[in-house]
């Protein structure tokens, strides 16, 4: 296998954790951080919850440990400017390292990376976009990140919890939750971390100010798991008033230097109003803008959320994993966890034992590149000889490349065309009274469901069905379906995972596209397009599988024998 480093993009808590763990495991790592310092957002916090210890402590341990290793490089003020898959198993990454000396030219570094961990963090939502809260316009409206600095010695108030503008005392503080989040005009998702942050800041205030009173304007308080205990603790200990409802306006009263909030309390269905010294906006998180990474999977919101629950760090470009807030909005504790998950996957890849992977017959291949485009993992790339090559370390043996190859020159051992031909030939030599159906079964979900079904019904009701298991329904080549149909089999059924549950992400949807194309051709051929079908079956849906088979058989009986018979 190709040799290279592991590149960690981002030097926040997730990136540092990942780099440090890998370095400790003896892996050569390079960490690239775009800012001039390490620690990211966590370094600017006052306290971590739930232990309320200063984050500096943990970060410094990590940084010290990391810099001890000679096989760990740290590049500050450095950004990724290019990522290229050069040979199977290796990325060539170009980095631009700026100099602190303004007269110096930026330096270009090229790193051969066997893997990349994206821990680039997330940005905070720009609160001024929510006009009615007056952020940036009204004195005393601040974000929760700014609230953190109010308690830090290097902050604007020198660590004193006083009004950041007037320097006056704080008596009444309002927190507004979901600033940007859960709002289709801004961020359609829950940022997840901000409820706890507000509770933590309520605690800061009450611990340091005797006469402080706090209000929280919220939609739902989301503190799952152990965080519920923290919520209860803050609620009972400091008794902030929870107003269920988000303010419709914030106004500044110059005479009293107070902020007037108007809201609805949806619990009592009453209009409420109040005057505050300080309004803290709990802003949501925005996915990082990372160009240069081609083909990696993002969720609909733009986070690198991975294939949950099975492969949470997996971005469908083998050798690239996500960690921290790039993956989804999360707090420091979850960032560390996700970094550890990425490290695990990274180590698994580095140590992976070879398994079955597709063979490419370059004598038949025309280098059309469809396999490269369709591979869900980026495991298939154009090699230096111009032909596609599969990295055994990256390949998941799903066979999607085999399914899409127009020239049938990709063969996944044990699942390739030879096997299918034998099955079709055998099926043609056996005669059964009813329609003959070739049934492709996805090995992940549908095949186990089929086995269960066979044992349950003891084969009854399954006459004329020719089962054929494939690693993924995306591994079925359209030519096999054609072969079955033009040989005279009456119908072909593809039973795979539901599209959004495909273990190889794109298998079912690719199969659906291929089938749609075939159906159109069949209808031009005056051959009923219903003779081919795709159905989604999960592992526990044996009964549904039987139902679908029966439905299909009834349909085929109605259509009559295949005219190619």
């Amino acid at each position: 296998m190709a040799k290279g480093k592991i590149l960690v993009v981002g030097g926040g808590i997730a990136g540092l954790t990942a780099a440090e763990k890998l370095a400790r495991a003896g892996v050569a790592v390079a960490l690239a951080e775009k800012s001039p310092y390490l620690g990211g957002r966590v370094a600017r916090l006052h306290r971590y919850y739930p232990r309320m210890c200063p984050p500096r402590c943990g970060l410094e341990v990590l940084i010290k440990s990391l810099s001890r290793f000679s096989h760990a490089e740290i590049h500050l003020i450095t950004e990724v400017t290019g990522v290229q898959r050069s040979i199977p198993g290796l990325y060539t990454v170009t980095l631009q390292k700026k100099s602190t000396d303004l007269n110096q030219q930026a330096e270009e570094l090229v790193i051969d990376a066997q893997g990349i961990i994206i821990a680039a963090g997330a940005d905070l939502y720009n609160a001024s976009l929510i006009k009615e809260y007056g952020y940036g316009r009204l004195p005393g409206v601040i974000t929760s990140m700014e609230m953190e600095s109010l308690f830090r010695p290097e902050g604007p108030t020198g660590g004193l919890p006083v009004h950041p503008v007037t320097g006056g005392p704080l008596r009444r503080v309002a927190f507004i939750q979901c600033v940007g989040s859960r709002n289709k005009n801004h961020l359609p998702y829950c940022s997840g971390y901000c409820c706890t942050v507000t509770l933590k800041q309520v605690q800061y205030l009450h611990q340091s100010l005797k006469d402080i009173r706090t209000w929280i304007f919220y939609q739902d308080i989301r503190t799952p798991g152990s965080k519920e205990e923290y919520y209860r603790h803050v609620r009972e200990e400091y008794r902030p008033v929870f107003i269920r409802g988000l303010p419709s306006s914030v106004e500044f009263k110059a005479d009293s230097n107070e902020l007037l909030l108007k809201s609805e309390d949806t619990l009592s269905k009453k209009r409420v109003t109040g005057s505050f010294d300080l309004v803290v906006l709990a802003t949501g998180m925005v996915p990082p803008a990372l160009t240069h990474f081609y083909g990696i999977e993002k969720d609909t919101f733009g986070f690198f959320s991975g294939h949950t629950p099975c492969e949470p760090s997996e971005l469908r470009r083998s050798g690239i994993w996500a960690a921290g807030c790039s993956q989804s909005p999360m707090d420091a504790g979850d960032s560390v966890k996700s970094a550890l998950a990425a490290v695990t996957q990274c180590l698994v890849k580095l140590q992976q034992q070879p398994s079955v992977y597709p063979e490419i017959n370059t004598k038949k291949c025309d280098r059309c590149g469809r396999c490269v485009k369709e591979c869900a993992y980026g495991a298939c790339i154009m090699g230096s000889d111009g032909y596609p090559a599969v990295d055994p370390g990256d390949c998941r043996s799903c066979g999607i490349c085999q399914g899409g190859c127009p020239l049938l020159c990709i063969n996944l051992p044990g699942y390739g065309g030879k096997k299918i031909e034998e099955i079709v030939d055998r099926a043609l030599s056996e005669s059964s009274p009813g329609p003959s159906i070739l049934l492709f079964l996805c090995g992940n979900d549908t095949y186990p469901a089929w086995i269960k079904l066979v044992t349950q019904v003891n084969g009854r009701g399954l006459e004329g069905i020719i089962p054929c298991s494939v690693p993924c329904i995306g591994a079925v080549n359209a030519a096999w379906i054609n072969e079955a149909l033009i040989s005279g089999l009456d119908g072909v059924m593809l039973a795979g995972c539901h599209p959004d549950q495909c273990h190889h992400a794109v298998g079912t949807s690719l199969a659906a596209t291929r089938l749609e194309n075939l159906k159109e051709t069949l209808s031009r051929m005056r051959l009923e397009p219903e003779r081919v079908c795709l159905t989604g079956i999960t592992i526990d849906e044996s009964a549904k599988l039987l139902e679908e088979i029966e439905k299909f058989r009834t349909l085929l009986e109605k259509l009559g024998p295949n005219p190619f018979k």
Partner: protein
Amino acid sequence: MPPKVDQQKCDGCKGEKEALCEAICPGDLMYLKEDSLKADCRSPRDCWDCMSCVKACPQGAIETRLPYQLGYYPAKLIPLLGSKRVSWTCIGQDEKVERFSYKNRND
């Protein structure tokens, strides 16, 4: 009007290098249109009707039409290739359907 490309079905072979029809045509007649990256025949009159492009298209997006000077609309001839067999469906101008299916490669 020999090769007729279904612009919906054609996926330009996903825009990688050459499309398969473009690569295979013995007369260098197929190309990808610059704007849509869909295939088209640059000079239908120069087509020999060898149907290589129709057979090569992974999407089943190409149909061969007989030049109108030679035969009436809308007769069709559609090959469908399996792994070792080929089938042909011929639909006459009078909608009469004829089908052929046979082995085209030994193992």
